[in-house]
């Protein structure tokens, strides 16, 4: 039995066209982009084209794009880089309690190095309050780093409003757009964003490729040293096929944002309708108005998440309890805990369903029926 994969927020299958293009590059354009001969120049040309195309897609120029090995590296580079480059102006950083660990642990790491970090609360929908940000801002705040769309519950933050609020302040604004990219249009000019991270493997691109957008003139200290690649911001021979794969995946996802969103809305409806038809008690974890349509996080009162996941898996539905990086641990999700409190049952009885490439209405119907049946059985 082929499992129905509903864990696209953890990672996605590579789009066949992306893979084809990458393999082509592997075979034909294998030169080192720093080499001065034709092989090198060819390789440099394709990565610079990718740089320009990706830049255009988020409203900037190619020269403001730094290629990385993924979202985690981009987040680290942004946060550590901005903190170290600006520490003369202050040592205070603002983030939230619902960030991905790539951001949270990096901030904790900076705390150990003498920076002070404010972890903002969110409401029970996982949304930040602009007033809280305003109040947390201090003269010595140098960086505000907030996730664009949360990876566990899908809640979108008021990024544009936050960016405008921060405008008169010296603090740089970084957003982790790893989940949001490819699902919603992102323009770094519209909401003045200084730093933005994204990764290819969440949008049907390859693993091991991501980027950091760095607004022109924003200083970041490199955390790694070596050759002069990426305008001295990120040393190491570039992953040329990976970069091309990232660009191709971004291009494909940009072409189809609207129809894909409609499809995901339809999938949500099928799932929720099926649960209702079967009298399954559930609640949506997240924000009813501001959310990423590919993520649906559901609370099933009276169930135990681990048992639920195992049984769903056996029945052929692959979903998860939260972020994949923490899924291995039994600790309750820090995101749900931030939304509902330490004592809440919700963190122990919720699953994340996430949609993506390769699904069909039939597959969703089948998965919905399995989920309804499994939840019902588990509650007995």
């Amino acid at each position, binding site marked *: 039995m082929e*499992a129905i*994969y509903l*864990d696209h927020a*953890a*990672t996605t*299958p*590579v789009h066949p066209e992306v*893979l084809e293009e990458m*393999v082509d590059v*592997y*075979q034909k354009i*294998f*030169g*080192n982009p*720093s*080499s*001065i*001969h*034709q092989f090198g120049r060819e390789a440099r040309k394709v990565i610079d084209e990718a740089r320009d195309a990706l830049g255009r897609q988020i409203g900037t120029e190619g020269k403001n794009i730094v290629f990385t*090995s*993924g*979202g*985690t*590296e981009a*987040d*680290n580079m942004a946060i*550590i880089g901005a903190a170290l480059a600006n520490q003369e102006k202050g040592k205070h950083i603002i983030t939230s309690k619902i960030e*991905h*660990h*790539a951001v949270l*642990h990096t901030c*904790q790491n900076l705390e150990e190095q003498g920076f002070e970090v404010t972890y903002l609360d969110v409401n029970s929908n996982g949304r930040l309050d602009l007033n809280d940000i305003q109040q947390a801002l201090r003269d010595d705040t140098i960086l505000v780093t907030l996730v664009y769309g949360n990876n566990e519950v899908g809640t979108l933050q008021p990024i544009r409003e936050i960016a405008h609020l921060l405008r008169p302040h010296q603090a740089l604004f970084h957003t982790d757009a790893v989940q949001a990219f490819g699902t919603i249009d992102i323009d770094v000019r519209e909401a003045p964003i200084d730093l933005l991270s994204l*990764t290819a*493997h969440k949008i049907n691109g*390859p*693993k*091991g*490729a991501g980027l950091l957008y760095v607004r022109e003139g924003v200083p970041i200290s490199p*955390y*790694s*040293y*070596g*050759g002069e690649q990426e305008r001295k911001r990120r*040393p*190491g*021979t570039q*992953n*040329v096929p*990976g970069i091309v794969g990232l660009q191709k995946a971004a291009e494909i996802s940009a072409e189809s944002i609207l129809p894909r969103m409609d499809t995901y809305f339809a999938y949500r409806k099928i799932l929720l309708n099926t649960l209702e038809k079967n009298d399954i008690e559930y609640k949506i974890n997240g924000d009813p108005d501001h959310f990423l349509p590919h993520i649906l996080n559901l609370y099933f009162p009276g169930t135990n998440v681990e048992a639920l*996941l195992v049984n*769903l*898996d056996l029945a052929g539905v*692959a*979903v*998860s309890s939260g*972020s*994949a*990086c*923490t*899924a291995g641990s039994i600790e309750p999700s820090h995101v749900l805990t931030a939304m509902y409190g330490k004592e809440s049952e919700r963190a122990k009885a919720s699953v994340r369903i996430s949609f993506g490439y390769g699904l069909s209405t039939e597959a969703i119907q089948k998965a919905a029926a399995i989920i309804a049946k499994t939840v019902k059985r588990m509650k007995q």
Partner: protein
Amino acid sequence: MIYLDNSATTKPYPEALETFNIVSNQFFANPSSIHGLGGLSEEMLKRSRTQAAELLGVKPSEITFTSGGTEGNNLAIKGVALSYSQRGKHIITTEIEHAATYNAFKQLENAGFEVTYLPVNHKGRVNLEDLKKACRKDTILISIIHVNNEVGTVQPLQEIGEWLKEQRATLFHVDHVQGIGKVPLNLKEYGIDLCTISGHKFHGPKGTGLLFVRGGVSLSPLFSGGSQELNRRAGTENLPGIAAMVKALRINLETSKRHLDDLKCLKNKMIRSFETNDDLIIHTPAEFSAPHIINVTIKGIKAEVLVHALEEDDIYVSTKSACSSREGGASRVLLAMGIPEDEAAHAIRISLSLENTSDEIDRFLDIFNKKINELKSVMG
């Protein structure tokens, strides 16, 4: 086409690409996901790790997958320095390291560490006596490149390792990026604690690499996030890249077992031909050098001019190391060997792989000699 710039990067093996393709398609799930598909990916990751460990003669838990040589060197050097700084703040390296090591040390120097840069002789070799003199009670790390990427000199790692074994407090890191498959290195016997290799230098994918970290060595990670790679390297694993790299490693080491002597013959053939030409100054030492790198200066001919002239005949060599080939000026490595500046500024590097054939070298030598005569008559 005769590609003789294999120290910059290599063409991936078709078998490695096939693995990349298969794993991309069949093992796309996130190894951290707890569902069945995630389990399959985790299994594949484990298999790759075990195989890599067997190939290197170490334990699976001693392998950390990275995004390449630069990251490996930075992780090893900074990871050790930060983790052991309580014990001491003196670290040692050489004057002929790759930029990834050299600049990581420069950064640590700025951060308050004391660095000794060991000199080399005219062959590019360090002297054990110099190391003994430099080593102190508070020396926590010594990092040495096994095979230099510009001239091919091989360092006396066995001697150094054996002596270092008695200096319990000092950890030993080796940049083996150029040596793998070309000059055998026994990690356990030589007492090596950390060792970096990079996939794209042995016909694996770009953006892949691994760091050997001996059991018991503690490492402060370069970036924070999820708990992948035993907490040493956060970020979703590039599983297709990892599997393809391990495949390439296996093929490369097997090929090396059978054809290393052939490679040595090819190099000797070139050296013999070069020796008969009075216009050539060979910088690669006759003994203690790797079988795949030759560095020469052609009197009166600019390196770039020759590189481009050879390119007209579809032959690819390079000036110095690829990452620094866009910087002007003489090579730091050649200067450290005591080579006069004007000679050092005009050196070219010819670098072979186990895939090059005797015919290719004959043709190369033919064209090379012709080009030199042509250029000399133009200039003269």
